[in-house]
């Protein structure tokens, strides 16, 4: 027990400051709905992440958002287990056809008002996999997308900016 306490004290707080994105950055993120979100969610959103065919690289970086450096919960952004509790769907992957119905159902299960963020090149445009007998390609081919965050995978900072852009 003493060891644990000692390590906690000596590690200290590693959480870093993160600047909210500027106008130009918001534009690059393709955010047009910020105003609505401000009004409706009073500065806090619940996210349901849906892997719709990703290589799992994007998930690794989404996970990193919860590490002590980024600690995204401090901004009122938290991940929930059910789409019924979510305001935002964070979707990765070039929507594999085997996940198409699951994604549609998850979307339907999310209460209105809701927003969809497509994360990673695959989700944005199909990425390395594109469209084929097995993949639908971009998430926007399956459900309406409000914001896109590019990158393969996007870094936690890019994800953070994209998500904070919805709020600040």
């Amino acid at each position: 027990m003493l060891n644990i306490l000692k390590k906690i004290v000596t590690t200290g707080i590693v959480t870093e400051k993160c600047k909210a994105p500027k106008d130009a950055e918001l534009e690059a993120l393709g955010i047009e709905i910020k105003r609505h979100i401000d009004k409706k969610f009073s500065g806090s959103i619940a996210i349901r992440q849906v892997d719709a065919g990703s290589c799992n690289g994007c998930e690794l970086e989404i996970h990193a958002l919860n590490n002590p450096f980024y600690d995204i919960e401090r901004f009122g952004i938290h991940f929930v287990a059910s789409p019924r509790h979510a305001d935002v769907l964070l979707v990765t992957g070039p929507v594999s056809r085997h996940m198409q119905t699951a994604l549609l159902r998850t979307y339907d299960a999310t209460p209105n008002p809701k927003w969809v963020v497509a994360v990673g090149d695959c989700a944005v445009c199909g990425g390395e996999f594109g469209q084929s007998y097995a993949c639908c390609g971009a998430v926007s081919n399956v459900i309406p997308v409000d914001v896109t965050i590019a990158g393969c995978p996007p870094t936690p900072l890019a994800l953070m900016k994209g998500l904070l852009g919805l709020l600040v």
Partner: protein
Amino acid sequence: MNWTTTFLTQPVSWVNPEMPDKPIGDYIGGLVQHSPLNNVAVWQIEDKHWQQFAITAVAENLRWIASWAEQADKQFIVNACFEKQGIYIVLRTVINATKPELPSQATVYPAANRSERHTQDMFGIHFIGHPDNRRWTRHQAWDKHQYPLRKDFPVQGEPPSITPPDTNYDFVKGYGAGVYEIPVGPVHAGIIEPGHFRFQAVGELILNLEERLGYVHKGIEKIAEGRTPDSLARLAGRISGDTTVSHCWAACMAMEQAAGVSVPNRALFIRGIVAERERIANHLGDMGAICNDVAFTFAQMQFTRLRELWLRTNATVFGHRLLMDVIVPAGVSRDVSELSCELLKQDIVMLKKELSEIMPSIDLNSSLEDRLYTAGYLSPEIAAAFGTVGYVGRASGQDFDVRRDAVYPPYNQVTVKVALEDQGDIASRFWVRYKEINASLKLIEQFINLLPKGDISMPWITPSTDSEGLGIVDGFRGEIISYVRFGDDNKIARFYPRDPSIVNWPALEKLVLGNIVPDFPVCNKSLNGSYSGNDL
């Protein structure tokens, strides 16, 4: 005498019962060919002996590794890969495309079960006597009588505008008073990949678990066809995001073999450094996640912090946090400067110090001990029967590591220590990872100290049509094999990557038995199979 020679000179009666004393090698096209896969023996046999080979092979303790098929005009070439004592053999047969069928090896090797079903779904090859004839990779995106990897199947296919859910898969059922079923997934509660688990339980006790994967099937094998080497390397780096380095390495190794390109020494050492850094990053993440699944958040926070620091050095030195696209055909894309070497060395010192502070707290934690010891037990026998690899196999006494037993450069210039545990429980899989981190740190240190001067890549040579290669490397989950055949003009004709998850996933169905349902997440995390790498 190595085992192939022993095996070949054994008298067997199955090929020709009239002359039971003749060695196997005499019956099947004389001796094994040493080309075209120049590091691995290719042994072509008649299709009727396919299953008999497996029967003999299992008696000889050969490990079943992978199987894949390929279409060549009116014929199918079917391959199966085996290993013993670090020596690999590719068994090959050619069958007619008009009525493609082959005796199943899954009757003997449980590890071959899903792989043969994949081949059945993708090529329409029927495996005679297969113990389980349900589909595997196919859900509802293509029709029962369509086979995506056949040449006449277009990449775009003819998918319905909305692919229906796969509702009529015939799961194993449990009957009896108090038995109930829990369906989980494909969309899970956490931030993880999609897949379906079907439990039969009594109270909290798991009676049976059936995995249903294939949800993230992206047609990787199909879209690989026609790619250039660079483009294939990028794709291979996205088979499973956490194993980007090792998959890319295996694919490049196969292509380099096919093309006869030798990679400069410096590039090989850099490959070794990034591969070991990838292993450490994943182990750190998984060790944190295992602790988190039993609510020990202190460890989770510490490990994710260390992982983040580790990834940041990756970004500084190699330009990518997960090290994607650092390995390219015939070399690497990033050199390391003296300064970078210093940074990498500092990272080693940092991690050693941090772990020396954190690990005692974990070791002494009685609630962790309570949850991780004896839970999720995988016996050495089952681990061997399924041909499990990496930390899953090594935690159940399977003493195999490609880096040591089928050594490839740069590992031939250093000493590789293979971590081993024999308790087979979650704790073993946890501690094997810790031992592997330490071993990897030593390897990186040696690679940096021995880093030769020189180029980091070579000019590419266009391989001749039909040349093949088999890349075999050890990724963080264990052995990866990657098969490549070139067609005309430097274009890929066939690519088959076997992620270690393909052989490790079935072990999960076994190791959860007798555990309680709430322990499933931590059991699952201790195995941590890749869905994407499995589904392709």
